[in-house]
């Protein structure tokens, strides 16, 4: 009791009842700090982060040695002319034989995969003998091919293009959904436990929501940045200059588009979560948001080689983060297009933030049955 009176000098009566109150920025800082610390202390979060870093890094590091894992050296029986012919063909170990009959015997007994023997009737002077089907690598190596002139050796590899679309899309989709759910459950936790009442008595709903959105964005971006570092290190280890060189510019566009797009998604998730009182009801309000992320993601993967669809997608806020880097990679984008796309995304995100703040402020103290999006927006029947 003495400590009490020492700290709070008795004023009878209490003339100016005031206590310091943290400003918007300070309060946001507190919310951000707590949200981040809680995640960093969470085992589940740390394990999934480390797992994704190790997995992606290892994938790239070993990508250089992957093909050798699937190849094997074939033994091929060769006669004198064949020896010259198979020289220089990869993965072939020549076994010298004296005659065609001997070669056939080895093929029949499966001692060799195939045999290459002289044949004066063949246009190339050789005959390939095999048990059931000839090894493609040997046949194609021995075939005559027309001269091929490559005009643009740097043109994007279509396989790599769709792989990149898949990769960026996956990164965006996974982190949007994972961290979107994180922010949603953090909002519902506070609402369900009613600590939100204590918090709102000492700070504003805006500080609370913005703090959560920023914290989640920092965490999501941090996780992805670490994964990116792991990928680069992996690339350096495997000497895969493809990763380092060609996708640097697309990645440079992906980063700002991702960060802004993520803020938009996180704000919408926070709003959706503020509309329910129990975690069990979260699915119904969060599903529309997940669909708006999921559908563009699917579209980007399916139409990655359709230039006009991709052009449209690069202006849609929900798909811009994936579509723009892909078009940059393909070289089918004008220099100003990413900037316009970024601007559209930024404006949309601002709108989403305002909308989400409005919904959040209206819904956060409501308990009981979940609100519909319409109710939350119009304030119909709101307390």
């Amino acid at each position, binding site marked *: *009791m003495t*400590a*009490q*009176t020492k*700290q*709070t*000098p*008795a*004023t*009878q*009566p*209490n*003339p*100016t*009842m*005031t*206590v*310091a*109150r*943290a400003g918007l920025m*300070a*309060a946001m800082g*507190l919310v951000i700090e*707590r949200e981040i610390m*809680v995640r960093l202390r969470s085992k589940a979060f740390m394990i999934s982060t480390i797992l994704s870093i190790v997995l992606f890094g290892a994938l790239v590091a070993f990508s250089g040695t992957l093909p050798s894992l699937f190849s094997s050296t074939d033994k091929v029986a060769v006669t004198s002319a064949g020896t010259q012919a198979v020289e220089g063909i990869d993965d072939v170990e020549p076994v010298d034989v004296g005659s065609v009959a001997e070669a056939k015997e080895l093929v029949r007994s499966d001692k060799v995969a195939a045999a290459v023997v002289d044949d004066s009737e063949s246009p190339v002077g050789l005959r390939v003998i095999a048990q059931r089907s000839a090894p493609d690598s040997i046949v194609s190596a021995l075939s005559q091919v027309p001269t091929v002139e490559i005009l643009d050796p740097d043109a994007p590899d279509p396989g790599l293009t769709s792989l990149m679309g898949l990769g960026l899309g996956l990164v965006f989709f996974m982190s949007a959904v994972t961290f979107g759910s994180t922010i949603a459950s953090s909002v519902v*936790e*506070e609402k*369900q*436990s*009613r*600590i939100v*009442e*204590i*918090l*709102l*008595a*000492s*700070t504003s709903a805006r500080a609370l929501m913005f703090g959560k959105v920023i914290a989640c964005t920092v965490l999501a971006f941090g996780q992805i940045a670490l994964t990116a570092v792991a990928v680069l290190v992996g690339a350096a280890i495997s000497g895969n200059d493809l990763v380092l060189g060609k996708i640097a510019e697309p990645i440079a566009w992906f980063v700002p588009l991702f960060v802004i797009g993520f803020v938009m998604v996180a704000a919408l998730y926070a709003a959706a979560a503020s509309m329910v009182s129990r975690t069990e009801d979260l699915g119904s309000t969060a599903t529309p948001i997940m669909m708006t992320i999921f559908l563009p993601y699917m579209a980007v993967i399916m139409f990655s080689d359709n230039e006009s669809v991709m052009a449209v997608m690069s202006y849609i806020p929900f798909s811009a983060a994936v579509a723009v880097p892909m078009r940059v990679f393909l070289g089918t984008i004008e220099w100003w297009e990413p900037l316009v796309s970024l601007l559209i995304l930024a404006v949309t995100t601002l709108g989403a933030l305002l909308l989400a703040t409005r919904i959040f402020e209206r819904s956060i*103290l409501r*308990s009981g049955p979940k609100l519909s999006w319409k109710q939350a927006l119009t304030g119909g*029947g709101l*307390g």
Partner: protein
Amino acid sequence: MITLDSITRSFGSTTVLHDLSFTIGAGRMTGFVGSNGSGKTTTMRIILGVLAADSGRITVDGHDITPAHRSAIGYMPEERGLYPKMPIIDQLIYLARFHGLSRTTARRRGLELLERLDLNGEPTDTLESVSLGNQQKVQIAAALIHEPQALVLDEPFSGLDPAAVERTLDVLKGVAATGAPVLFSSHQLDLVERLVDDLVIINRGRLVATGTTDELRRLRSRPEWTVEGHADMAWVRTVPDVDVIELDGSWVRFAAAGSDAAEAVLREALTRGSVSSFAPHHLPLNRLFQEVTQS
């Protein structure tokens, strides 16, 4: 001093607070009593600004309440809840820092409060790992962590054992002793009766009565007395202007218009034999409460 002036609030088409006015005096423990759904929680939320009133105003010492005033209120909401998975001391520090306390001050103050409330557990335990009664103590500590200059507590004693009630009471009285207005709701009317200076009774969102418990008794019921002697007291029924409420052989409880009539009963009893006790009878608050909410 916090004053509510004509506060009205509706949810949709239902009006839950009708023109509610009352005052929480400086340094006064004010009990806030009403049946379930009578509007206590809504009133408290409006005082704290987590809910807006449709009309009416709240003043602090005559000035309109500001966020700075509200920040000086220690608040304990009806539905308990802090962060279940967060260490106890960490959440106290977190809440305190919204009020501008430094981390070290908040920690010192938090540990001190937990000590005074006799938390049975380590401050570094997570909230969910301690018993419900102890979680309740943490909740009280959360309301007090920022050295509030007023308290608004919704059911602060529910779930506490008698020893914890006494400790909590000591802490709350300590705050009131600094001149802070203290408002708390409770359904434990015997407890309220024992510790409040003032009472505010509401029913269906309307103010039914406000004042000290004595004032309310005077206002609402005929004063009562009890007499105990050694002979049968049935004769009291025949005394004019006196109504026997309860009779048990040589013990009687009666209502009378004033002390003159009561003393007449005492004199009559003395002429009939010895009297072992004579005293005014205090109507228990729960009876008073039923009386005022049902009238």
